């Protein structure tokens, strides 16, 4: 396939948290607001005068110092962020908005405060509490937390405007990004998709890590370019898979999967687009902030929700994605020591196989996994088993047709 015009530029932007577009927005006087979790409503961090940056630690090396402050048995993502902060990689931030959704990440973010890791006198860290259930009173609590932990501190410290007009403006921009990503993502449902999982992963990460106003033009252009893009006649994959799991901001992981013979057609992981790139529908007759908060609670697929309906919904979603995106199987991935996905992966990968008849494999991985030869072997073996099952199914269908 012909290379996407902006792909190389996007890949370069992902090499640093403080990338060229972040620097450009900062130079325009905008506030850089860091966050790490879906439960911190991204759209609130994109009100006029601000932009959100979902934190990554690209090109992570040794995690020794973070391990000293935390421990060996905590997730590599939280440690990588702490290590990068200690290295001075997030000095561009004006605030860091955390959520009490994951104790490991909480510990990492606490260290931003305790060790005064961001060299900015106005910098602050705030944590919001997120309920475990979706009930009218918990939504109310979540909205109050958004006010107390995001809106008030940002208004008081930086005079950020969170009026209804400002919120609607942020929602409109967010929705345009989502519309474009949904349009681009829909090509992954094609029989021979015109976009690879790696390309989509890069594009989607850009929407999380760069100021939206500065990428919209390029996203629009990419969506336009894809309308006429011709996929290679000879398919470059042997099976299509849905990737499901914990935090994953390393497109090299998707590349590794695709180099092993699979095409990633749906991304149901943290930092992915399902959920993440759904439009927020606002009813003008209802409270805007409540609707925004509710959107994040309802769409979340995080295994921190342990109620029966949410557990079942997560499994049904994966099964639906397999069908919708014509996938041959599911790869459950979990960053090592992720508490929530540890349970989810162990159970759901078996349920997919044994109860839903959806072939699945599961892997645990380090924060950066691209160089792992063993991981490559595991993914390749899974792809081979999917391919063989496909051949056997076709053979069976042929026998039935003949006889």
């Amino acid at each position, binding site marked *: 396939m012909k290379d996407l015009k902006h792909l190389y530029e996007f890949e370069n932007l992902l090499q640093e948290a403080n990338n060229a577009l972040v620097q450009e927005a900062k130079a325009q006087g905008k506030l850089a607001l860091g966050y790490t979790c879906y439960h911190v409503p991204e759209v609130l961090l994109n009100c006029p005068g601000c932009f959100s940056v979902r934190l990554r630690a690209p090109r992570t090396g040794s995690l020794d110092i973070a391990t000293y402050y935390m421990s060996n048995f905590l997730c590599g993502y939280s440690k990588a962020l702490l290590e990068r902060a200690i290295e001075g990689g997030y000095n561009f931030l004006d605030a860091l908005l955390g959520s009490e959704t994951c104790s490991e990440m909480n510990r990492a973010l606490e260290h931003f405060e305790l060790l005064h890791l961001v060299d900015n006198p106005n910098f602050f860290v705030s944590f919001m509490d997120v309920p475990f259930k979706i009930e009218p009173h918990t939504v109310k609590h979540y909205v109050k937390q958004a006010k107390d932990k995001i809106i008030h501190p940002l208004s008081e410290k930086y005079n950020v405007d969170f009026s209804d007009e400002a919120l609607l403006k942020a929602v409109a921009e967010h929705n345009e990004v989502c519309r474009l990503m949904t349009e681009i993502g829909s090509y992954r449902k094609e029989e021979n998709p015109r976009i690879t999982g790696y390309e989509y992963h890069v594009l989607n990460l850009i929407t999380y890590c760069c100021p939206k106003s500065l990428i919209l033009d390029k996203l629009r252009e990419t969506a336009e370019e894809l309308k006429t893009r011709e996929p290679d006649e000879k398919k470059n994959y042997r099976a299509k898979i849905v990737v499901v799991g914990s935090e994953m901001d390393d497109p090299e992981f998707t590349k590794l999967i695709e180099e092993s013979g699979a095409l990633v057609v749906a991304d149901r992981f943290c930092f992915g687009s399902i959920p993440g790139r759904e439009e927020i529908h606002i009813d003008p007759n209802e409270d805007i902030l409540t609707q925004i908060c509710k959107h994040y609670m309802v769409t979340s697929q995080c295994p921190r929700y342990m109620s029966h309906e949410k557990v079942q919904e997560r499994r049904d979603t994966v099964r639906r994605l397999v069908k919708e995106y014509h996938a041959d199987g599911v790869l459950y991935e979990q960053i090592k020591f992720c508490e929530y996905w540890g349970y989810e992966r162990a159970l759901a990968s078996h349920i997919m196989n044994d109860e839903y008849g959806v072939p699945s494999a599961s892997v645990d991985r380090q924060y950066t996994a691209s160089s792992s*030869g063993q991981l490559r*072997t*595991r993914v*390749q*073996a899974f792809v081979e088993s999917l391919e063989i099952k496909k051949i056997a199914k076709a053979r069976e269908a042929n026998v039935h047709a003949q006889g």
Partner: protein
Amino acid sequence: MKYFGGCDVGSTYTKCVILDENGKMVAAVTNRSKINPVQSAQIALDDAIAQVDDLHSAKDLSYLIGTGYGRNKVPFAEENISEISCHAMGVHVTNPEVKAIIDIGGQDVKGISIDTDGTVKNFAMNDKCAAGTGRFYEAMANAFEMSLPEFSKLSLSAKNTIPITAQCTVFAESEVISLVGEGKPMDEIAAGIQLAVAKRCFVMAKKAGATDSITLTGGCAKNEGLKQAIEKVLKIKVVELSTDPQLMGALGAAEYARQKGMAKAG
């Protein structure tokens, strides 16, 4: 006559098998791997080809498949297949009754369950460290100042087992040196090492869904002490293969090459 090759470039040994079109093994080679996988594969292929009068170079093979960690570095290979699939196929053609494998290679341990057609039903892999792998055994044999074959038989004479707590290769080596220093019987320490590895294999086998009729493949399959320890923890008899278990990956690759090559030729 057409010939088909499988080349398994492992982290410690490179194996090569050539089959004729009837599936008969006409050449088999096991060499210590070089640092360069291309070189390892080339030497193993040359050695195997030298065993077949009709063949003069790897180009004469009708179909060649690479497997093992260096699978994509095998010169002239038509394609590569993961060692997990190849071990399953290799065991299946050797003994179709076997339903599960514990493959202990140089740098990982795998549990594999096999479907009725020789394909992989399920697998589990210990790939985070060298604990319980061929590298681990090399370190242990070094600590005992023995060769690997000597060390593999040492535990057979043990009347008791001294448990080894460390699984990490580096820490286990220190623990073994301390135990030897304390004057503990060497064979009982060795039995403890075998038991520790067998327990790790137990986990992999169970994770892969192995229930009965299991065999060992990879270089460590020749370790008699380990085989006995595995039988003890799994409470089933390990099936002995009629072909060298270290060759199973290469044999599986060659069998896949035979099937694909014959299908291609129509």
